[in-house]
């Protein structure tokens, strides 16, 4: 696996597909949730409108260099994550730049955008954004823990850290999926998945009903556009990782679309039926339930 | 060793111990000093019995003589001091 120039357009194409898929899918999920709540919800193209609108807005406001760079970090994190993970197994062109590093790279790169965003919001100087950041970080770190354990369990199970090889090992039938070969690890990982998608009951950080806190309140116009872009591709990128290592990956775009949608629905469904946790409740929850499962996963391998 | 000597020794020994007890139990310091001097004096006699004339002389002169006077000198000083 070495670099060739043709990989650049390939990767851009993948990015384009995922972006559009994400824009549509998040709208659909939101609409579904609204319907469950008895509201009409947004049109499915609402995300496109927002994006275009925000890009079109002009702003002359900046609070400083980090503030300015925050969204850049955020979006770079999302795009980078997509680039470092192979999207479609077996495809010659949807491998992106996954030759640069393996699962560990993906796992740690998740923090890149988070860090940048937090720093950017921090410079805005508004204490509410700082509160949002500290809450968000506290919760995310606790939530990611079962995932790290699950990844380690999987890596031991397959004796590799390469995502491609993990996917390859799950080919040849439904029951080769990690979901069935190592259900405990998957369960652990799903704690993390639900916890990091920022949906109820773990959405106190960005919940609109709370006092307006967190990074989104500080950004507007093009900044917000970048962040919105990220908000559609980053969950997809993360879902791709889960799909790859737990659910047999995807051998074509259709399988990709279905699997991602279904996975994405899990937190959405949970969110619809559960009230919101406070942050320390979330942390306790992950330590009390997610962590033991993760530990079990490691011990069972 | 004659029985006489032995008896003499025993008597002196008892005298010494007796004087020592007096020196320790008496209420008067003057008596105590004098009794202690007496112990020394008996000791020097004892030394003669024990065939140690050199020691006997020394004990008599120093132990019972000079020491006792030293005590009285100091006691005198202290008494004068206390009167002030």
């Amino acid at each position, binding site marked *: 696996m070495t670099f060739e120039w043709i990989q650049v357009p390939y990767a851009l194409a993948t990015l384009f597909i995922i972006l559009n898929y994400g824009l549509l899918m998040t709208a659909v999920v939101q609409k579904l949730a609204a319907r469950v709540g008895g509201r009409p919800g947004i049109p499915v193209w609402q995300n496109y409108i927002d994006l275009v609108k925000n890009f079109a807005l002009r702003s002359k406001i900046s609070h400083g260099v980090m503030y300015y760079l925050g969204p850049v970090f955020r979006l770079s994190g999302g795009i980078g994550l997509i680039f470092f993970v192979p999207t479609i197994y077996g495809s010659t062109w949807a491998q992106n730049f996954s030759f640069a590093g393996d699962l560990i790279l993906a796992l740690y790169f998740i923090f890149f955008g988070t860090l940048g965003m937090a720093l950017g919001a921090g410079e805005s100087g508004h204490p509410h954004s700082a509160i949002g950041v500290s809450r968000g970080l506290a919760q995310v770190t606790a939530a990611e823990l079962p995932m790290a354990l699950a990844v380690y369990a999987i890596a031991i199970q397959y004796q590799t850290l390469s995502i491609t090889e993990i996917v390859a090992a799950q080919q040849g039938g439904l029951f080769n999926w990690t979901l069935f070969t190592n259900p405990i690890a998957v369960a652990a990982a799903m704690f993390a998945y639900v916890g990091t998608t920022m949906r109820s009951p773990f959405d106190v950080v960005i919940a609109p009903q709370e006092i307006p806190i967190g990074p989104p309140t500080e950004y507007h116009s093009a900044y917000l556009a970048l962040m919105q872009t990220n908000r559609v591709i980053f969950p997809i990128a993360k879902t791709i990782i889960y799909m790859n290592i737990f659910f047999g990956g995807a051998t074509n775009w259709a399988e990709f679309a279905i699997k991602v949608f279904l996975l994405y629905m899990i937190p959405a469904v949970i969110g619809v039926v559960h009230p919101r946790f406070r942050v320390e409740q979330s942390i306790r929850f992950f330590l009390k339930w997610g962590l033991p499962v993760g530990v079990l996963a490691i011990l069972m391998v | 060793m004659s029985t006489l000597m032995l008896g003499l020794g025993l008597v002196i020994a008892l005298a010494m111990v007796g004087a020592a007890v007096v020196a320790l139990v008496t209420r008067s*310091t003057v008596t*105590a000093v004098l009794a202690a001097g007496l112990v020394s004096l008996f000791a020097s006699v004892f030394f003669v019995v024990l065939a*140690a004339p050199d020691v006997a002389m*020394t004990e008599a002169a120093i132990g019972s003589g000079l020491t006792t006077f*030293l005590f009285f000198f100091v006691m005198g000083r202290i008494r004068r001091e*206390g009167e002030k």
Partner: protein
Amino acid sequence: MAQIALATGFVLILAGLYGALTNRDILRMIVAFTIADTGVNVVLVAVGYMPGRTAPILDAAVPVAVASQRIIDPVPQALVLTAIVIGLGITALMLAYAYRLFRLRHSLDISNFTELKW
């Protein structure tokens, strides 16, 4: 004889020590120590004593040739002489100290001189 002397000496030592440690009057402590000193001297001399022999002085009665059969051990006596003088020295010194202490506090009770402690 030697045992009598030894026993006497030891009794004096013990009595002296007991007196020195139970009498709170400084002068009486010193008196007690002189008694103990005397006891030590008696013990020392007693150790050199050998029944039926004479003082370690060579004269017509004790010629050099037979001296080692006739005289008692001279060494303890020599030691006692030294010990007596040293004992006097210390006693005198303690007395001088007693005087100093009395001047300090107008008391001869040893339990009054405890400002240095812990």
